[in-house]
């Protein structure tokens, strides 16, 4: 699109669009990532539920050996990362919608991201410890 066409479509100064009410261009990627992780979680979530149910009465050695299997370890790590990613995106929308005090909103958003990164890394580390220690 040429600059001339853009002017005809939108007469606002581009700085005016960028500031305040204008699109920041990142909403689409948030929306899309939420959907893509959702599709992933449909499959990974069902797999996770079935795996947990199969380990219900397993003793420690069996549970550990199951998680240590390469495919299970891989899927488990994928599940945990996708889950935390999806949770961060979802919680972000909830906080932005319902927390109307700016500083509380920012503190919550940052705290959620910190916790999610901690949770995701702790899970990955645990799975790796199980999968890589004989």
């Amino acid at each position: 699109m040429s600059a001339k066409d853009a002017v005809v479509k939108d007469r606002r100064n581009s700085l005016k669009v960028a500031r305040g009410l204008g699109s920041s261009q990142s909403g689409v990627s948030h929306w899309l990532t939420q959907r893509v992780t959702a599709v992933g979680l449909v499959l990974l979530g069902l797999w996770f539920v079935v795996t947990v149910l199969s380990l219900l009465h397993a003793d420690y050695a069996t549970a550990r050996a199951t998680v240590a299997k390469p495919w299970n370890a891989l899927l488990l790590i994928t599940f945990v990362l996708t889950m935390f990613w999806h949770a961060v995106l979802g919680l972000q929308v909830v906080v932005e919608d319902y927390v109307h005090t700016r500083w509380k909103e920012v503190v919550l958003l940052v705290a959620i991201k910190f916790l999610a990164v901690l949770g995701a890394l702790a899970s990955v580390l645990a799975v790796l410890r199980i999968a890589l220690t004989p």
Partner: protein
Amino acid sequence: MADTQRPLSPHLQIYKRQVQMMTSIVHRATGVALAFGSLLVVAGLIHLAAGDESYSHFKGVVGSPIGMILMLGWTWALFYHLCNGIRHLLQDAGFGYEIPTFVRSSWMSVAGSIVLTVLAWGYVLTSGGAA
């Protein structure tokens, strides 16, 4: 939130309660509940990695009466968010916007989540009790 005074739309209590409104609210609520539940997944993996004793302790806590009630709640939340999430994905793809379809698919999310919860817990209870 914007500092300017803008006209507000009527709030929730103005509207008649409808199933498609409840499914939307409950989708968010179960999403938040599941986000807290994700910490249980982390705890489970850490205890499994830490050793036999630690894992037994974890299973004991999850298998306690309060743990079981929470697990039942999380099971339903997961299946509800799953069913209604699939419904939302189909709607995002452009399907099911006619009002009767929209209402019917809302009830299908509710019914599907209950059926899946019953199936999962039926397995838990018939396979020799939990944990």
